[in-house]
């Protein structure tokens, strides 16, 4: 019954809310009532529409993981993504958003819990005050980023983690870890405000944070049974469905057109289409280089690698997307495409990352953040009023150093916080299912039914529970000639 108690933690949050004074809502509403201006309308619409595409990335991550899992572990991912997305929403609304954007604290924010009583929005959320988008619009957009970061965490845990682990860590991650980490980078925290670290849409703040959590849990979880032979050599455990994997990649690619260009937090300055172009060029270069690298290193064009190349390039261009010119985007994406293939092959030798999350989000996230230090266009640094031009333009290593410092500190914070969290979970609830459950698959053992019953349950069992119901001979002609089918 442990699991129940765990899940109940989430209920607490709900109960708490119900006790809130009903006046609560008023604020939000009045706040909005006033803002009936054209500019607000246009910018808010863009940010909200962008947020919807980012929200859809949940499906992208789900199918990327489903495709890379074996059929016996495919269904649980659906329950996981639904639960995580839900917990993230409640936690980020109750606590996370306030910590991430509420006020000017160097380490964390402090106003706007439950989106209430924050007074003047531009004062309450200074890091986003350059935009006139409504607070609700900004909140929803930022929440979808939190959900993306959380989704990235689980890529390394497929096929063996206990279901309850998702719930427990999700609460901590969405309420504390992600908000604090992202606050430093683009919520007005010390890295951004004091040092001028550049991370336009979150190569570090979203992707590296997620990948760092993924690394922490993987180290405590260990590889899937059978992943490494007696000789310690890695064995292939092929994912069961490349088409669904492809669906995931294409949905993620689409979502990125909300992710990066939406981070302009406005449409009227005409910047967002440029960000889209930069994003597309990088992704394209990434796919092509990943395919070529895979062909050269593995003699085959690995389908998964082509997809990883797209993701890695998109992650790589996330931080620079608002700071670099198209030509630089091509380079950034191309490098990410090569990096991810090499990294996946190297990592696979020792630790078991079924979807390549450490490479596609971690390594590529680091590369993307550092790339600002190399390629940031001074004109765009000024335009965004964050940091300065990159080495390539200025010849100065300053920005590159700032970026590196940001990567290191954020990684350190998230890794320590996550490792502690997962360590405590391991000692109490446990991280991993039993060997028998792992062999049987998470769908049947955690959810009581296979995700693809017809693949695992013999037809005679599926039809015949108890004596036959059908009139004798009914099925004898179930192979009807067309003419036998009443038209």
């Amino acid at each position: 019954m442990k699991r129940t108690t765990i899940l109940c933690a989430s209920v607490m949050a709900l109960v708490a809310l119900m006790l809130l004074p009903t006046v609560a809502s008023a604020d939000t509403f009045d706040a909005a009532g006033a803002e009936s201006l054209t500019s607000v309308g246009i910018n808010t619409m863009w940010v909200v529409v962008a947020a919807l595409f980012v929200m859809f990335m949940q499906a992208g991550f789900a199918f990327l993981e489903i495709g890379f899992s074996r059929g016996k572990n495919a269904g649980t991912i659906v329950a996981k993504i639904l639960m995580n997305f839900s917990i993230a929403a409640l936690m980020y609304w109750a606590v996370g958003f306030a910590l991430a954007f509420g006020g000017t604290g160097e380490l964390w924010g402090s106003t706007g819990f439950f989106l209430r009583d924050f007074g003047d929005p531009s004062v309450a959320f200074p890091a986003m005050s350059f935009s006139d988008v409504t607070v609700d619009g900004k909140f929803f957009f930022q929440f979808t980023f939190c959900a993306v970061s959380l989704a990235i965490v689980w890529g390394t845990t497929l096929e063996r983690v206990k279901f309850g682990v998702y719930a427990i860590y999700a609460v901590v991650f969405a309420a504390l870890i992600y908000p604090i980490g992202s606050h430093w980078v683009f919520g007005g925290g010390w890295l951004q405000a004091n040092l001028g670290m550049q991370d336009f849409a979150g190569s570090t703040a979203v992707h590296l944070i997620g990948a760092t959590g993924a690394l922490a849990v993987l180290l405590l979880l260990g590889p899937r049974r059978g992943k490494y032979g007696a000789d310690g050599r890695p064995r292939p455990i092929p994912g069961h469905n490349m088409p669904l994997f492809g669906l995931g990649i294409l949905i993620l690619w689409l979502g990125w057109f909300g992710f990066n260009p939406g981070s302009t937090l406005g449409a009227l300055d005409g910047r967002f289409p440029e960000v889209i172009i930069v994003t597309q060029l990088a992704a394209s270069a990434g796919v092509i280089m990943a395919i070529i690298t895979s062909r050269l290193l593995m003699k085959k064009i690995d389908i998964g690698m082509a997809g990883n190349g797209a993701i890695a390039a998109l992650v790589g261009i996330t931080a620079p997307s608002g700071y670099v010119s198209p030509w630089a985007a091509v380079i950034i994406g191309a490098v990410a495409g090569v990096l991810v293939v090499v990294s996946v092959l190297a990592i696979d030798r020792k630790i078991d990352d079924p979807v390549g999350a450490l490479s596609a989000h971690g390594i590529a996230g680091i590369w993307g953040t550092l790339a600002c230090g190399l390629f940031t266009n001074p004109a765009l640094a000024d335009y965004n009023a964050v940091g300065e031009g990159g080495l390539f333009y200025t010849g100065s290593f300053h920005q590159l150093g700032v970026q590196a410092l940001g990567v290191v500190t954020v990684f350190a914070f998230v890794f320590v916080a996550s490792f502690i969290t997962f360590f405590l979970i391991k000692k109490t609830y446990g991280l991993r299912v039993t060997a028998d459950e792992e062999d049987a698959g998470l769908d049947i053992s955690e959810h009581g039914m296979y995700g693809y019953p017809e693949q695992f349950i013999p037809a005679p069992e599926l039809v015949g529970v108890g004596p036959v119901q059908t009139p004798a001979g009914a099925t004898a002609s179930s192979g009807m000639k067309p003419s036998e089918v009443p038209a």
Partner: protein
Amino acid sequence: MKLVVAYIRHEAFEPIRQELLELGFPSMSITEVKGSGRQKGVTEQYRGSSVTNYLRPKVKIECVVATGDVQTIVDSILRHARTGSIGDGKVFVLPVEQAYRIRTGESGEETLQSHPDPAAAV
């Protein structure tokens, strides 16, 4: 010892399995096969062209039993698998010269002993 092989309809399997279990014959193996016989095929169409599939799904039961038990098994199968219409299938009996239980390594007819309560074991 004999091997009883039966090709039957899917719906017939469960009742047979249950009766054999009650009679003390829990052990058998089944395979999904495709059978051709007197039964009609199914005609499939796709974008204009069509093809007839003459093979119909059947369940093949394989059960090795002591010679003395053969008739019991066959009767049970004949009783439950019969609908009276084409496609009911066939039962065949083949000789078996030796049998081994892998778990214990023991061999001979005793490896086929019926177990009082099969469900009891893990």
